[in-house]
């Protein structure tokens, strides 16, 4: 640091000495004069008794003496004062020097200090610097300080700092720097270029204060203010043992905890319906980096919620889980209402359809008299289309049920060989109508899955009837089962016109019928495959097709083998 100037004090002392000597001489002189004057005055006094002139002389001498004495007194007082002032100044200067050196010492102890050469290579760092950044002095000496910055040499913060120093200016500002462990710290930095007496840049000193905690608190404060008022429950908990880090007001309210109590709980305590196994399987894609957010619908004490969970990085880079709960009780009620409406509609339509179908059947059977050929044909048309309507109603209801997750699944062990044979038997009539043949292909004897027999039959029937609709007349449609490792694949292969692979997505959408490749439109509701997909999804399976235009299509669905682990990978 700067040198404290000692000369002023010694100069002052010199002056003081001079003044002392001067004053002493003055006093000595004065005393002499006074003494002389005193004897003169005595003599004059004696003589004044006899002469007026001698009296005048006496008075004059007296006045001179008085003036002299007063002057001396003033001089003495001011000299004393001056001496005292000097003493005080001297003392304070000493204190000042002590204080500065104390402050310097304190700063060295508490501030984070580093020095670089004009090129930017580290020359020295103090202990605080080592502690903050996690590097030992020996690891960093000689290196460019750019490794502290997120983007290294290309970091805009680093570049700005270098430019400022090169322009011989002091840099002062906040920096976000990287420690050895990868943690981010926020520091308040002052970097000073130092010059020798010739103006050459000889070194650069950086002084830093760690304000990470302050910044975290600020960021937390902002986020907390934001989350506090959110009309959704928010839970932030650590990734190690799910201990609560933060809960917003709504969440605290539902759980009935204070903020302090919450910090002693884990996310598992937030609901009596919490299931750790289900929770851990839901967050797995997050941990594996496969998903940025996972959503699940669940029930808790106050109703239905949709829970979205993410991994959130705090300002110091430590990760935590953040779950936001959206109340969907109203939505659920709406879905329920809609389903009831659809079910109600479906029911309302079935009653008149009963009468229509009944009438047509009675007419066509001859039970109420014979019909001529033309009339009979018309009745057939009416009958067929009534069936179409009924199928459509069934499909709509099925679809709504499955969407509202209200479709019931009766899970049993299904022997795929029996399953396929039954399906072929059931759809024989349909095959005859379309002049095609369903044929059983290879089916391993022990092929078994766990599933709802009725709903799976619905799926295979859907695939088989589609195949029949698109198959050329007289052709065979092969239904087989193959081993796919941890799943069984049920395939329905036709020799129809084929489906372009670009249509893969559309095929399974609801109310969608593709433009057939051969140009012939077949009748259908457009819901069949959408429902089939939902049923297969529900069985943790996968449905898709392979196709070659002009040669044929094989639709297939895969189901986990009985006893295998849940869920197989989608195509």
């Amino acid at each position: 640091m700067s040198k404290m100037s000692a000369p002023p004090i010694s100069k002052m002392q010199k002056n003081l000495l001079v003044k002392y000597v001067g004053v002493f001489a003055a006093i000595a002189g004065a005393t002499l004069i006074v003494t002389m004057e005193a004897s003169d005055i005595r003599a004059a006094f004696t003589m004044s008794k006899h002469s007026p002139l001698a009296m005048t002389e006496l008075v004059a001498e007296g006045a001179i003496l008085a003036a002299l004495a007063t002057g001396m007194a003033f001089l003495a007082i001011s000299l004393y004062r001056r001496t005292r002032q000097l003493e005080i100044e001297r003392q304070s200067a000493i204190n000042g020097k002590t204080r500065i050196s104390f402050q310097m010492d304190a700063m060295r102890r508490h501030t984070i200090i580093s020095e670089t050469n004009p090129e930017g290579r580290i020359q020295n760092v103090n202990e605080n610097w080592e502690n903050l950044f996690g590097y030992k002095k020996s690891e960093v000496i000689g290196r460019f300080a750019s490794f502290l910055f997120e983007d290294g040499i290309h970091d805009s913060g680093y570049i700005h700092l270098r430019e400022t120093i090169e322009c011989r200016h002091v840099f002062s500002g906040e920096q976000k720097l990287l420690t050895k462990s990868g943690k981010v710290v926020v520091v308040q930095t002052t970097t000073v270029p130092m010059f020798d007496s010739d103006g050459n840049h000889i070194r650069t000193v950086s002084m830093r204060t760690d304000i990470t905690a302050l910044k975290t608190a600020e960021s937390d404060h902002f986020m907390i203010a934001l989350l506090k008022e959110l009309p959704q429950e928010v839970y932030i908990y650590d990734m190690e043992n799910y201990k609560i880090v933060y809960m917003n007001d709504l969440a605290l309210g539902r759980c009935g905890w204070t903020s302090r109590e919450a910090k002693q709980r884990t996310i598992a305590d937030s609901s009596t319906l919490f299931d750790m196994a289900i929770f851990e399987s839901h967050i797995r894609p997050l941990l594996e980096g496969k998903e940025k957010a996972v959503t699940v619908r669940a029930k808790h004490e106050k109703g239905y919620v949709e829970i979205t969970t993410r991994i959130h990085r705090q300002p110091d880079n430590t990760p935590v889980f953040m779950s936001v709960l959206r109340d969907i009780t109203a939505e659920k009620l709406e879905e329920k209402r809609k389903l009831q409406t659809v079910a109600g509609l479906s029911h309302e339509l079935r009653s008149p359809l009963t009468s229509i179908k009944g009438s047509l059947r009675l007419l066509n059977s001859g039970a109420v008299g014979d019909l001529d050929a033309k009339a009979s044909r018309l009745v057939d048309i009416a009958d067929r289309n009534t069936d179409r309507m009924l199928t459509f109603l069934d499909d709509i209801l099925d679809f709504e049920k499955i969407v509202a997750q209200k479709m019931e699944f009766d899970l049993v062990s299904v022997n795929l060989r029996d399953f396929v044979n039954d399906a072929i038997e059931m759809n024989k009539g349909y095959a005859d109508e379309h002049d095609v043949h369903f044929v059983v292909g290879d089916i391993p004897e022990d092929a078994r899955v766990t599933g709802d027999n009725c709903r799976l039959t619905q799926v295979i029937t859907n695939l088989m009837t589609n195949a029949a609709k698109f198959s050329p007349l007289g052709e065979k449609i092969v239904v087989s089962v193959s081993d796919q490792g941890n799943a069984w694949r049920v395939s329905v292969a036709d020799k129809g016109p084929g489906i372009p692979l670009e249509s893969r997505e559309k095929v399974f959408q609801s109310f969608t019928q593709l433009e057939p490749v051969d140009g012939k439109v077949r009748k259908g509701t457009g819901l069949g495959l959408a429902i089939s997909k939902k049923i297969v999804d529900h069985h943790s399976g996968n449905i898709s097709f392979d196709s070659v235009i002009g040669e044929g299509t094989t639709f297939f669905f895969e189901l986990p083998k009985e006893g295998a682990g849940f869920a197989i990978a989608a195509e």
Partner: protein
Amino acid sequence: MPKTITVLHVDDDEDIRIIADLAFSLDPDFELVQCASGPEAIETAKDLRPDVLLLDMVMPNMDGEQTWARLKADSGMADTPTIFMSARAEKRFSDHLIKMGATAVIPKPFDPITLCSEIKSALKDSAALSQGRGSSVVNFAS
């Protein structure tokens, strides 16, 4: 069966009653009596003492299940074979009725040509089972 089987059919829809009437006319073994509502059926049943009850499920004011309960209680028809006809397709619903002691559940729309034979076979199964144990388990719904 030696004598004709008396069927009490209850349905609020007139057209369906006409269809059913035509359906039963195809089989001489059956005699059909029809009512348009639950209360009417309860009155009729007191004197009629039908052999079989054929009840529509969804009816205004008193539905099929309620009508059945009243018939069992008021008219002492607890043991009469009862077949329901319903436009509600849910398996769970049919299971519930069977569990309560219904002989069968026929889904709507029904086929008038085969209605009588369906009812006959349901009654046969029911009779055979009741010789051994209790309720029959016939469900025409898939």
